[in-house]
C-alpha cells in the first residue's frame, strides 16, 4: 500500500480474496505443501538440506515475531495473538516485552519510522500529512502510563463459549507510552463542527490477502478523541514501539477496548456519522443493550458499541497455585475506563470477610493503580485470595460474568489459589 496517498476506506465485504494465488489454487497449494521444498521458497538451492533436523525451519523463513517478548502464551500464531499469565504482569509499569499482542491482520512489510506518514483528513479545515519527525517537532511530546485492555480479555471463561481468541487474564497492560496528544493534532487540522466520530486506519493487511479489505478500522466519538490522554504514540518505555504492538506509530486510547487504539497508524479521518469500518458494525466490539441470559440469541440490531471498559483488578503476586508462608504480600493492579479506583478489597475466606488493600493513586490519568496488602493466613491449608476493585462511581467488580454473545467485558473477580504448608 502506498502510505503517502490517502486510501479510500474500503468496507467492502463481498468478493473473493485477491492474492497471488487464486483461492482454489491456494487450497491446492496447501494440500501440496507437504511435498514442496524449502529451496524454492528461499529462492536458491540448499546444498546441505539433508543435514537439517526434522522440524527445522530455515532461519530465512522463521517469522514468529516474538523477538523482544517474554513469557507470552500464544493463543493464535497467525495472526499472532498472545497474552501474559497474571504473575508476569507484576511490574507497576508494563515492560515492552510483557505487553500482550492482539492482531487482526497481516503485519506491514515495512515498519520503519522513516518515510511513515500520518494523514489527518475528512471533516477538518486543513488536511495534514505528517511524518513522525513532524509529530516530534511540531507538537508537545508527552510520556504517559496508559492502560490498554483487549475488549475480549476474560472471554475464555464464558459459558456457553463465545467465539474469538480465548483470552484469560493477560490481555491488559500499562506501559509508559511516548507520543503527542491526538487532541493537539486534531486542533492543528481544525475540527469542523459537524465531525462527531474518528475513523482509524492502519497499514496491516486483511488475512485474506485482499488489498482492498481492511482487517480492522475503528473509531471513537470526537469528545473522547479530544481528551488529554489519548496519544498518537511512537514510543514505549523509552524505546520504540514493538513491531507486534504497532511500530512505528499507533493510537493509545486508554480505558476503551484496545481495538480503538489502531496500530501501524496511517490515517485519522473525521466523520459526521458513527464510523462504520470493519469491526465497528454488526456485533463486533458490541454488547446487547440489555441484560441477557447466557446463550440467548440477540438480534444484531440490539447491540451497542462498547465505550469505556469496566472496573477490574488483577492479582499479580503471588502466582496462583503458589506455596506460601502464613504471611504473604498480595499485590496487583486495578483500573476502570475513564474513572479512577477508589478502593481494592481482598478476601481469603471465599468472600465472607474483606480487608482493604493499600492503593496508590494513578501515576497519571489513564494509568492503572497499583495496590498491595500483607495477608496473614490463619493456619496450614488451601486458600483463595480474591480481589475486588471499586471505582470512583462506586461500581465494584461482580463475582459472576455478565454473559454476552461475543464474550466481551469480563470483569469478574480475579481469584488465586494459595497453599500454606
Amino acid at each position: 500500500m502506498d502510505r503517502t496517498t490517502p486510501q479510500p476506506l474500503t468496507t467492502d465485504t463481498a468478493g473473493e480474496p485477491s492474492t497471488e494465488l487464486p483461492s482454489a489454487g491456494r487450497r491446492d497449494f496447501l494440500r501440496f505443501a507437504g511435498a514442496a521444498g524449502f529451496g524454492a521458497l528461499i529462492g536458491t538451492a540448499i546444498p546441505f538440506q539433508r543435514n537439517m533436523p526434522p522440524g527445522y525451519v530455515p532461519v530465512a523463513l522463521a517469522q514468529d515475531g516474538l523477538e523482544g517478548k517474554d513469557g507470552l502464551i500464544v493463543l493464535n500464531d497467525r495472526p499472532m495473538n498472545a497474552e501474559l499469565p497474571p504473575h508476569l504482569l507484576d511490574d507497576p509499569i508494563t515492560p515492552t516485552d510483557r505487553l500482550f499482542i492482539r492482531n487482526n491482520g497481516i503485519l506491514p512489510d515495512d515498519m520503519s519510522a522513516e518515510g511513515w506518514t500520518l494523514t489527518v483528513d475528512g471533516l477538518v479545515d486543513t488536511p495534514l500529512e505528517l511524518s513522525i519527525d513532524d509529530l516530534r517537532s511540531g507538537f508537545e511530546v508527552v510520556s504517559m502510563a496508559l492502560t490498554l485492555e483487549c475488549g475480549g480479555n476474560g472471554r475464555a471463561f464464558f459459558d456457553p463459549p463465545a467465539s474469538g481468541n480465548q483470552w484469560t487474564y493477560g490481555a491488559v497492560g500499562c506501559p509508559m507510552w511516548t507520543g503527542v496528544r491526538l487532541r493537539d493534532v486534531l486542533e492543528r487540522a481544525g475540527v469542523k463542527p459537524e465531525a462527531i466520530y474518528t475513523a482509524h486506519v492502519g497499514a496491516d493487511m486483511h488475512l485474506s490477502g485482499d488489498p482492498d479489505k481492511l482487517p480492522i478500522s475503528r473509531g471513537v466519538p470526537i469528545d473522547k478523541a479530544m481528551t488529554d490522554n489519548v496519544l498518537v504514540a511512537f514510543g514505549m518505555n523509552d524505546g520504540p514501539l514493538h513491531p507486534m504492538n504497532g511500530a512505528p506509530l499507533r493510537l493509545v486510547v486508554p480505558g476503551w477496548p484496545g481495538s480503538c487504539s489502531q496500530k501501524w497508524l496511517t490515517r485519522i479521518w473525521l466523520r459526521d456519522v458513527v464510523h462504520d469500518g470493519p469491526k465497528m458494525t454488526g456485533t463486533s466490539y458490541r454488547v446487547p443493550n440489555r441484560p441477557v441470559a447466557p446463550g440467548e440469541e440477540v438480534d444484531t440490531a440490539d447491540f451497542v458499541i462498547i465505550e469505556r471498559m469496566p472496573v477490574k483488578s488483577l492479582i499479580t503476586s503471588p502466582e496462583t497455585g503458589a506455596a506460601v508462608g502464613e504471611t504473604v504480600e498480595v499485590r496487583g493492579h486495578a483500573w476502570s475506563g475513564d474513572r479512577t479506583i477508589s478502593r481494592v478489597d481482598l478476601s481469603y475466606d471465599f468472600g465472607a470477610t474483606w480487608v482493604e488493600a493499600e492503593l496508590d493513586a494513578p501515576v497519571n490519568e489513564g494509568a492503572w493503580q497499583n495496590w498491595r496488602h500483607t495477608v496473614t493466613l490463619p493456619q496450614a491449608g488451601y486458600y483463595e485470595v480474591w480481589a475486588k476493585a471499586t471505582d470512583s462511581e462506586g461500581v465494584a467488580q461482580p463475582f459472576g460474568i455478565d454473559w454476552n454473545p461475543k464474550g466481551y467485558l469480563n470483569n469478574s473477580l480475579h481469584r488465586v489459589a494459595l497453599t500454606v504448608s
Partner: protein
Amino acid sequence: MKRASVVIAALVVLANPAFAQDDEGPYGVLVDAPGVEETYVNCAGCHSEMLVAQQGLTRERWDKLLDWMVEEQGMWEIEEPERTVVLDYLATHYNTDRPNFPRR
C-alpha cells in the same frame, strides 16, 4: 510481492507434516479425526488452526460462522459434500463441551 511470498512460505511451513512440532500431527493442534484435512485446508489458508481449536460452538453457530467467513472475511465457498464434512468435524470435536480445548 514480498508479503505474499512470506505468507505462502509460512503456509508451507505450517502445512508440511515434517515441520510440525513434536506433539502435533500434520494438522497442527487440530484433533486427528475424519474431516481434519478438509477443515485444515479450508481454514488454515488465512489463519492458524489454533484459532479454530480454541472455539467451542454449537453446530448451528459453526454453520453461521462458515457463512460469515465467506460473506465478510473473503473465504472461498466450500462446496458440498466437503462443507458438511467440515461442519460435522467442527461440531463433533469443537462443540460447547470443549472436549479438545487446547491445553495451556
